[in-house]
């Protein structure tokens, strides 16, 4: 039974869904956002892991958000406090001093000088090359990918502008851009640097959340996307006061202030279609809500394969969505700690731990971690991307205590033997063991531990295959091909049904760009 006559429904209150809600509300519509969990935020949430210890459950850094969204939603006025620690990435090593990259380029170059003067010299050049290329690519993030068969006039114009910008690049950078797109990130890193750990830090961004190793072709494109977002190819350390969940809270504040409605604890079971047009949604409690527009913040697989009756989609289309690669490769381990751990070679320097901590000292280490996943086993020595958010925001833990958020790769969703319920405990142990090699005292500090396997990510967060990015960020699934060639304009084969999540251009990470772009396209249709 219909209990509301809201015309626009947004399925899922992740950051992208909430951003769409804001833009639609601002345009005078009254969108209703339905969130399955008891809290909003999707993968960008802060939750209590142990009494008094609050931790970013899944994602721990901003992408960053595209500036237009931050400005339009007045997020800073609505409670968003950003934290940018001086350290961008710190990588402890078993042998030799740690490699540390700071926000400040010249400070980084000075620090690298003690490790390799070649790399110290190359680093500023690396940054400026990516900065130049990033500038050209920046508009790509906030554009709607063109339809290749029937390009709209605006998108041709946008492409022409892009072409002009491209021609403004030096010939060297122009060719770099073309060459790098399909390249293996290990090759790219080796072209610039000789220090293995530095290469590995760079490569890590190319394989983040992806079922690919640094030797997989196309992994350099992740660096180009990162450069497009903030002019730098290295993983960003951009945190939020109160944890990343505060970001989605502030987006929700903006959206509701503009007139959107949000309901939590409501599970959309299916999207109803009538004569090729959306007619509403049905909740798991049987409640029906009529709607003429439904916008899905869920990933493409679950939107098309779980929420829609198969008869509503062309079998070829369904088959292609079925082939959309969405097998998660990552897990999360979150820890409540009684004190700060000490990493080897740091002489209890607290500040050095404030950004990202990278465990994965060599390209081969990362590749071997991936090898295991290829054959359906979790990495025996995983790559870890760690943050200690309580270090820059003490409010997240009781006095003296800390929370540690560990992104773990690789943990293939599909295991060759057994299932994740059998492997969960072992995964936690592997992570702690690996971490202990670099921070020997960590074991004695653990008060509580949360392990989220890819299966947990699927079940608790509704991420198909446990894929944090809503699908592989590989070349065949990016830009005009995300999620599918011909369906990259946020629209779907069902009239009135749209996608707005990370499974659309420009993909995952906490950037807000998919929501921003989807909002623009949907409003175009609604106004027409």
């Amino acid at each position: 039974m219909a209990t509301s006559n809201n015309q626009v429904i947004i399925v899922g209150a992740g950051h992208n869904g909430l951003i769409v809600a804001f833009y639609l509300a601002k345009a005078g519509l009254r969108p209703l956002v339905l969130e399955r969990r008891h809290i909003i935020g999707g993968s960008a949430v802060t939750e209590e892991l142990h009494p008094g210890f609050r931790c970013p459950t899944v994602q721990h850094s901003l992408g960053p958000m595209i500036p237009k969204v931050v400005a339009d939603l007045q997020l800073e006025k609505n409670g968003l406090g950003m934290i940018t620690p001086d350290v961008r990435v710190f990588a402890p090593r078993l042998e030799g001093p740690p490699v540390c990259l700071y926000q400040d380029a010249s400070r980084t170059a000075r620090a690298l000088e003690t490790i390799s003067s070649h790399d110290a010299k190359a680093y500023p050049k690396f940054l400026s090359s990516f900065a130049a290329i990033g500038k050209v690519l920046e508009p790509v993030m906030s554009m709607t990918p063109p339809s290749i068969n029937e390009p709209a006039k605006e998108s041709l114009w946008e492409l022409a502008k892009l072409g002009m910008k491209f021609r403004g690049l030096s010939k060297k950078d122009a060719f770099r851009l073309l060459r790098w797109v399909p390249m293996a990130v290990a090759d790219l890193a080796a072209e610039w640097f000789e220090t293995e750990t530095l290469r590995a830090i760079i490569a890590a961004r190319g394989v983040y959340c992806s079922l690919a190793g640094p030797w997989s072709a196309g992994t350099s494109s992740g660096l180009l996307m990162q450069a497009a977002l903030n002019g730098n190819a290295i993983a960003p350390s951009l945190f939020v006061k109160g944890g990343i969940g505060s970001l989605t809270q502030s987006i929700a504040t903006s959206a509701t202030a503009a007139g959107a409605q949000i309901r939590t604890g409501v599970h959309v079971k299916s999207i109803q279609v009538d004569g090729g047009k959306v007619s509403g949604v049905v909740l798991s409690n049987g409640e029906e809500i009529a709607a003429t527009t439904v916008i899905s913040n869920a990933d493409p697989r679950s939107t098309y394969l779980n929420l829609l009756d198969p008869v509503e989609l062309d079998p070829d289309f369904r088959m292609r969505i079925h082939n959309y690669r969405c097998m998660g490769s990552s897990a999360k381990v979150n820890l409540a700690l009684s004190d700060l751990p000490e990493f080897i070679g740091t002489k209890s320097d607290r500040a050095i731990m404030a950004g990202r901590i990278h465990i994965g000292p060599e390209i081969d280490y990362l590749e071997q971690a991936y090898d295991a996943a290829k054959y359906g086993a979790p990495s025996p020595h995983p790559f870890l991307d760690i943050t200690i958010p309580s270090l820059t925001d003490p409010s997240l833990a009781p006095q003296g205590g800390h929370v540690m958020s560990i992104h773990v790769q690789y943990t293939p969703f599909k295991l060759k033997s057994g299932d994740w319920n059998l492997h969960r405990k072992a995964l936690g142990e592997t992570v702690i063991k690996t971490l202990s090699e670099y921070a020997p005292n960590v074991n004695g500090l653990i008060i509580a531990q949360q392990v989220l396997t890819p299966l947990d990510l699927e079940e608790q967060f509704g991420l198909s295959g446990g894929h944090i990015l809503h699908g592989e960020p590989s070349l065949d699934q990016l830009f005009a091909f995300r999620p599918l060639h011909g369906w990259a304009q946020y629209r779907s084969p069902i009239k009135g049904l749209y996608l707005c999540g990370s499974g659309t251009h420009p993909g995952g990470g906490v950037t807000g760009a998919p929501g921003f772009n989807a909002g623009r396209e949907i409003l175009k249709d609604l106004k027409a």
Partner: protein
Amino acid sequence: MNSKSKYDVVIIGGGHNGLVNAAYLARAGKKVLVLERRYVLGGAAVTEEVFPGFKFSVASYVVSLLRPEIIRELDLPRHGLEILPLDGTFTPMHGNYLWRVNDHAKTLREIARHSKLDAEAYDEYGKAMVEMGRFVKPILAMTPPDPTTLNLKGLRDLLFLGRRFQKLPYADQYNQVQLMTMSAVDFLDQWFETDVLKATMSASGIIGTFLGVRSPGTAYVLLHHYMGEIDGAFRSWGFARGGTGAISNAIAGAARELGVEIRTEAPIAKILLQRGQAKGVVLENGDEINASVVSSSVDPHLTFIRMVGKENLPEDFVEDINRYKFRGSSGKVNLALDGLPDFTCLPGNGKHLRGAISISPSVEHMERAYDDAKYGRFSRRPYIDMVIPTLTDPSVAPPGKHIMSCFVQYAPYHLKEGTWEEKREPFGDTVIDTIAEYAPNIRNLILHRQVLTPLDIEQKFGLTEGNIFQGELTLEQLFFLRPAPGWAQYRTPIRNLYMCGSATHPGGGIMGAPGLNAAKMILADWKRGRI
């Protein structure tokens, strides 16, 4: 010797591309000289009597990609080219096998024995690949545009490509995008469920590359090999009667008839420059040969770093050439046999021995072979592609004897431990052990064995790092990026020096397209007065 006399064009290397280049230039009335370092023509497309009475296609062993217009225009059959079809692919397994043959209905029945669904998909797949091949073919004959300095022609070429793509039916567009970017296994996973079928098909995606069947980008190489064409029939593979060298000899015959002069055992020391322009070559024996144009069919490392010299080239260009990836990944084992191998899964001397025999029993076998190479060792259980040409062409061995050519992957040029000098025989043993898992009698049949490591391939054939395609066929080294950004138009930073080998678009294999495309570019430049 007329070493002082001036030629219009001197061509470095008598491989198939150098010879094609020569023939087309001579056909347009140019006075052409081809210089080959070895005693025999053909480069990697060569037949040699390695052991008395046994004539091996030492390196390249099957043919499929040779452009039909070259065969036609140079009238190669009249010059002795005869291609004998290769009948299918046989993949032995433990207790089973997969045997695909040229008879389509039979192949479908065989695949249905493994999976009914796959048999249905196989038809669809074949049709889709033919469509993809049709789309890509004109690109092979095209000079890649330079996207950073688009002139009218470049823009027109890009638009031409865009339009062609737009005209494809949606399903083909979708496939095309996937082919250009995906891994062979990911691509095949969408069509098939039978592991051995995927493993064997994906093998053609990795030949000559330092990539695994799960590496993105390998699906494209799948197509590259699918485009094989013999007498206009798509994707048939074959042997040349008399071995692969017969192809080179036929092209050389055609070239000579057109007036090309060819010299063997004429190694080149350097390319002669005068005021930054190429004006000829100097042989290792000190002879100078003058020519208006030098066209090099050897790889960019040899051409630029060895023969031109870094000091004569722009710094950025040298950097690009040094970055160009070779990474040889394959070896070759040539066997002289006293009889035929007997496969446990299908005993006897049946027709299954007449085609390719592929040791690719599972995707995991393929991928693990690659994993070894990634960390700098040869595969403990390699992928092997074998042919027994004596079953089709008995002329290449003494009566009753056979030769078996085994292409082996992976054998990385750069070893983590030891040298190829030490590892040559252990590598050969590994290959024999792997074959013996499926055909145990092989050990007792071997009369002679020649093991070619990537180092041997480099030294013997002048292929840097032993890469059989003169550089990896990865996306960042294809089309307008092959061999270097901005230099994909067969021209070089040295005026009157051109490239015409596999290191230029569209890349390696016995295709002849680089030699032909380069000849067109040289002739066009001549007309334009650039030369």
